[in-house]
């Protein structure tokens, strides 16, 4: 049978603003080449033309499903350049927002993963639960549904509203019950296991060599997590574990994310328990002293690094975002040799989010 060449996306029920060039022989993918760039909006270039604070809403647009971590990396960089200490209350609020953001991002991933495998209920449920997080907590804290611009250089924009702790804990209680249902309907489903186990295996040396990051890395047995390795915000005062699975297949990658949702819930609980009183932000200057800084955080999709160069003016000289999705791009080579039906599985198990990669 001769090879068929076709491209998956950008209009494809199993894609979005992204294209794969596939060469197919029989049911086997001979070659799969990702073609990103459909949402390249030149965030890095525009960031050079705007002031430091104006860049916060701009930069968070590059990853709208995980805004807090992106803005946190940027804010941490500027704080380091300015040489200011963020008050502990703000640090804890940042942790809360980042973990909420992580849960929401993973729920978003779960929804898309579900529908990619043909499980329409698994598309609806996580999206519904994500909305509960949005409306019950995130919107109450930050005042917007998805684009908060809440974490700014120097702290956070507002203090927590009254009664948010009870609200959030109630939501988390509900969510924990839901996670069990997800497990029952999706993760323990034999068909799901059949479709993901042994699919797209990424060995540990390969994972490091390719430079993949985040849950993709942890699914291959590497305990790489910036929250533990280089603690930022208030992570060094909280007690949590990093889920690691060593099989390196799509199943272990998805289990990592699934376990992370539970762990994030417990981190939020601890953060609310230990939440100190005090200021929630400090004054900053508009002019940032000359210098360069490389700050990194653990976003939902992996290690997100922000490299800022300042020339002492009100605008950054260069902002480089090294985003996890872009770094997971080499992972698409896992598709070579797998079946066509495994394409969505491998794709989504990498949690590739084109906006994040293209910037």
């Amino acid at each position, binding site marked *: 049978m001769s090879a068929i060449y076709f491209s998956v996306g950008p209009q494809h029920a199993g894609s979005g603003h992204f294209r794969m060039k596939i060469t197919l022989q029989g049911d086997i993918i001979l070659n799969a080449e990702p073609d990103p760039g*459909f949402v390249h909006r030149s965030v890095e270039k525009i960031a050079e033309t705007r002031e430091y604070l104006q860049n916060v809403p701009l930069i968070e*647009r590059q990853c709208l499903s995980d805004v807090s971590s992106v803005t946190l990396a940027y804010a941490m960089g500027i704080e380091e350049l300015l040489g200011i200490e963020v008050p502990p209350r703000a640090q804890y609020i940042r942790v809360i927002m980042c973990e909420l953001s992580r849960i929401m991002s993973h729920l978003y991933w779960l929804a898309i993963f579900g529908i990619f495998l043909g499980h329409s209920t698994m598309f609806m449920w996580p999206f519904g639960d*994500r909305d509960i997080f949005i409306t019950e907590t995130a919107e109450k804290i930050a005042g917007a549904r998805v684009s908060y611009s809440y974490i700014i250089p120097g702290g956070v924009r507002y203090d927590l509203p009254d009664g948010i702790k009870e609200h959030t804990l109630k939501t988390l209680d509900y969510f924990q019950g839901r996670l069990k249902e997800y497990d029952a309907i999706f993760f323990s489903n034999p068909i799901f296991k059949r479709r993901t186990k042994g699919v797209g295996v990424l060995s540990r040396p390969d994972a490091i060599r390719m430079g993949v990051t985040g849950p993709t890395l942890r699914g291959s047995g590497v305990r790489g997590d910036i929250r533990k390795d280089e603690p930022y915000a208030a992570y060094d005062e909280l007690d949590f574990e990093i889920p690691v699975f060593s099989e390196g297949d799509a199943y272990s990658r998805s289990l990592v994310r699934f376990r992370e949702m539970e762990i994030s819930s417990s981190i939020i609980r601890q953060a609310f328990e230990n939440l100190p009183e005090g200021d929630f932000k400090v004054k900053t200057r508009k002019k940032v002293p000359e210098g360069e800084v490389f700050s990194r955080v653990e976003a939902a999709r992996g290690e997100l690094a922000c490299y800022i160069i300042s020339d002492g003016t009100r605008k950054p000289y260069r902002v480089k975002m090294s985003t996890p999705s872009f770094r997971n791009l080499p992972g698409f080579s896992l598709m070579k040799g797998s079946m066509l039906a495994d394409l969505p599985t491998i794709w989504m198990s990498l949690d590739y989010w084109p906006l994040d990669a293209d910037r």
Partner: protein
Amino acid sequence: MLAVANAFVGRLRSVVEKIVNVNPIRYIVNWGKLYSLWPVHLTTACCSVEFGAANCPRFDVGRMGVAQFFGSLRQCDLIVIEGTVTKKMAKRVKKIYSQMASPRYVIAMGACAISGGLFYNSYNIVKGVDKILPVDVYVPGCPPRPEALAHAVLLLQDKIRKGRVNITDGE
């Protein structure tokens, strides 16, 4: 032979169009159209997050017939431009629009799709999707709330309800 057939079909079409536009029939046809808007699977940028949320249990635009997951773009009749259209995507958007069967409707969702929004001075985007497609409803916001999208669907339905029925075979 073909010309005769074409002329015959053309005349038939105009007759059918006349019949269809008589009021009660027109109402029924438009009623069918407005409650069955199947969107294309096209996400152009970050508003897809809120478009997904609009489909989810809390908002559920499926109530208005905007059914999720209905096959390929040949069968779809609503194209929701979810956010920024980059120049690379613009070509594909145009192509996708031309591949759809008429009647087809366009909702421009988000500030970026309307005018370029936050990225108005970027080198790689199209400033407003109306430069390449005829837009029926604009939904402002960055990103718009799902309620806004639901409202846009209602507006579109209103527009369809009042519209004439065209039996065309495309441009």
